[in-house]
């Protein structure tokens, strides 16, 4: 069955869901294709079960979609690998990138910790200020109004009085009170001359736009059961549905984008419950994330675009960035309710500018996670973190369950041409080439990891905690934070989309996700920037459409 819309959006996460929100409210008829399901939080999220942390309902890593190149690490990287009680977790010196995300209406915001950070002003001018990466074709000022609007839609609570963040008006809500681990670590940070700030979070502290107030269940990463968290399904998709202009197809996997003889994007071929279908759109917006978006474009070849759609520059897939992270799992002397509250309630931004990390380049931010993700419940703590067994294990549980926390660093990943997504010779069950993801850790990345490790250890010690484990993105952590594979720019030879996310080669084709990022910010979480850019892209689409009377 064929169908025609004002716009077809592929992917319903932070980018696609936000574009759908804006376009439908402007009166456009929109089809939203989502590969995953629409979750029913009360039924599908297991947070009421006694064994709730056992379930992985979001299918975080999909081995059907990509293969990842293996890197043999040099000896100087080994000390940066993950440990438990001083012993390495991995038995090899090999590493490969793991892409962790959620598949479903709302995309990875279903499991994000609701961190909503604006990128710093300098993040948009890294090349001219520090000689790192590339400058964006827009400045912070261009994006500021869209940041503000996204914060209002989401209902962000935060502390605007922070000299390490761009100047801004107060958030829609005041910051949440810090949890017990953050209060302790704040004291440790002060000893080191660092300032711990409440995090800015899309988690309302009071009822907001039809959503209830947070109940502090620490469950954001497992799916928000009561629907207070500002994930895209509730904050963007529900209002878009209310317009009557949005059609959502779930279980709909986009296979290819077709172009007409004039080189305009014409339709999307997708596979759904009833087989192969084709949907036409006057505008087509790709929002599949920085791995799947280039994969779809590279798989959409035609006579006019033999190297992939919108790829005359050869830059589709290039400059892949992830986030580098290092986590210290720490123990306090006694329980601090670390499994309660908000997942990441505080951050330390002192190192978020490259000026603060000297030769390493790029910046990073420190943070406090409460009980580490994946080790929140007593059953996971007992199995993974508490040592030994028998009577001593029971005593350890009684003394330390709820006393475990995490101090982490998240660092900028410098964009490099050779870190990229290309097409693999391996195919998925539908015969579509998988993405081949090549991310190599360079010396600069290792230096940043080393720097973060030192700072995390210093903070752990100053806070009176004991480090019992480490997780390093080098070998264990899958990253959801990816970007850069259809970067934006003014020069069609060096970028894939323009400053509005519009493809240089195909004017009615847009990218609205983290693929358009030019840099990743100094440890900032990307969701808010994806949404702000998506609102800007959507406004451009509406303006264009109005000129043509839709």
């Amino acid at each position, binding site marked *: 069955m064929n169908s025609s819309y004002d716009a077809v959006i592929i992917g319903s996460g932070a980018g696609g869901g936000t574009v759908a929100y804006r376009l439908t409210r402007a009166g456009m008829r929109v089809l939203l294709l989502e590969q995953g399901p629409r979750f029913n939080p009360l039924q599908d999220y297991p*947070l*009421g079960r006694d064994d709730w942390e056992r379930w992985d309902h979001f299918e975080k890593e999909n081995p059907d979609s990509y293969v990842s190149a293996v890197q043999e690490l040099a000896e100087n990287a080994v000390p940066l690998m993950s440990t438990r009680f001083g012993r390495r977790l991995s038995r090899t010196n090999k590493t490969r990138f793991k892409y962790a995300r959620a598949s479903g209406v709302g995309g990875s915001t279903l499991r994000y910790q609701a961190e909503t950070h604006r990128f710093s002003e300098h993040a948009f001018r890294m090349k001219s200020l520090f000689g790192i990466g590339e400058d964006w074709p827009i400045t912070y000022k261009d994006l500021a109004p869209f940041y503000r609007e996204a914060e209002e839609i989401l209902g962000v609570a935060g502390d605007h009085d922070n000299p390490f963040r761009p100047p801004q008006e107060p958030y829609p809500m005041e910051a949440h009170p810090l949890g017990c681990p953050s209060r302790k670590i704040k004291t440790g940070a002060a000893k080191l001359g660092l300032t711990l700030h409440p995090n800015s979070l899309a988690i309302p502290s009071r009822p907001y736009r039809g959503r209830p107030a947070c*109940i502090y269940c620490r469950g954001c990463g497992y799916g928000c059961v009561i629907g207070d968290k500002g994930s895209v399904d509730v904050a963007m998709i529900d209002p878009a549905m209310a317009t009557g202009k949005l059609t959502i197809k779930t279980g709909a996997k986009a296979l290819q984008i077709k172009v007409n003889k004039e080189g305009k994007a014409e339709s999307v071929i997708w596979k759904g419950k009833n087989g192969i279908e084709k949907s036409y759109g006057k505008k087509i917006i790709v929002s599949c994330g920085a791995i799947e978006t280039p994969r779809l474009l590279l798989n959409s070849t035609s006579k006019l675009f033999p190297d992939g759609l919108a790829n005359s520059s050869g830059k589709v897939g290039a400059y892949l960035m992830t986030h580098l992270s290092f986590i210290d799992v720490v123990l306090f002397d006694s329980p601090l309710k670390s499994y309660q509250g908000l997942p990441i309630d505080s951050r330390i931004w002192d190192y978020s500018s490259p000026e603060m990390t000297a030769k390493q380049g790029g910046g990073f931010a420190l943070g406090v996670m409460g009980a580490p993700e994946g080790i929140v419940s*007593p059953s*996971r703590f007992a199995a993974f973190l508490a040592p030994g*067994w*028998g009577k001593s294990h*029971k005593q350890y549980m009684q003394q330390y*369950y709820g006393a475990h926390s995490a101090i982490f660093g998240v660092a900028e990943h410098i964009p490099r041409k050779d870190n990229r997504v290309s097409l693999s010779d391996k195919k998925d069950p539908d015969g579509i080439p998988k993405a081949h993801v090549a991310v190599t850790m360079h010396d600069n990345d290792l230096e940043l990891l080393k720097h973060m490790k030192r700072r995390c250890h210093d903070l752990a010690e100053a806070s009176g905690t004991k480090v019992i484990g480490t997780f390093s993105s080098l070998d264990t952590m899958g990253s959801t934070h990816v970007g850069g594979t259809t970067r934006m720019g003014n020069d069609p030879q060096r970028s894939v989309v323009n400053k509005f996310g519009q493809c240089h080669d195909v004017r009615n084709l847009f990218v609205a996700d983290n693929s358009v990022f030019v840099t990743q910010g100094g440890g900032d979480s990307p969701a808010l920037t994806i949404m702000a850019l998506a609102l800007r892209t959507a406004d451009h689409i509406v303006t264009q459409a109005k000129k043509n009377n839709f």
Partner: protein
Amino acid sequence: MTRRFFLLSSLGLLFFPQKGLSLANEEIPDETILRSLLAVLIPSDDTPGAKETHLYEKLVGMLSTDHRRKEIYAEGLFMVRNKIGPDPLVEIDWELLAQSISRSTFFRFLRWDAMRFFYADRASWQAVGYEGPPIRGYKEYDRCGS
């Protein structure tokens, strides 16, 4: 049906490593081995242990659907019998036995399963100060005491 066959079947553990190989100390039922090791892993004292939370029954339930685990457990039980030796009258020090197999894949799985089942049981929560699954929320999360 032999006694051994029956026991392995009831556990869902009937698996090729036992067939035709040494049946060391076959008098000791699988159930006894597993219950004894579970009691070492999570002993009962003034708070509940493996016994009170019916960990053995939970393990058997899991093994009836998890075939990969079933193989690991079957191999582990075979290894344990070999450790014990052929004398049916020998008194077994289960603590010592657990130490001796602690680096084996079987023991690691057994420990992991025991811990995750035990601490997902409400009977274990009071002792560790756990207030229960997230769904009810923890509105006093920021009351940290002194």
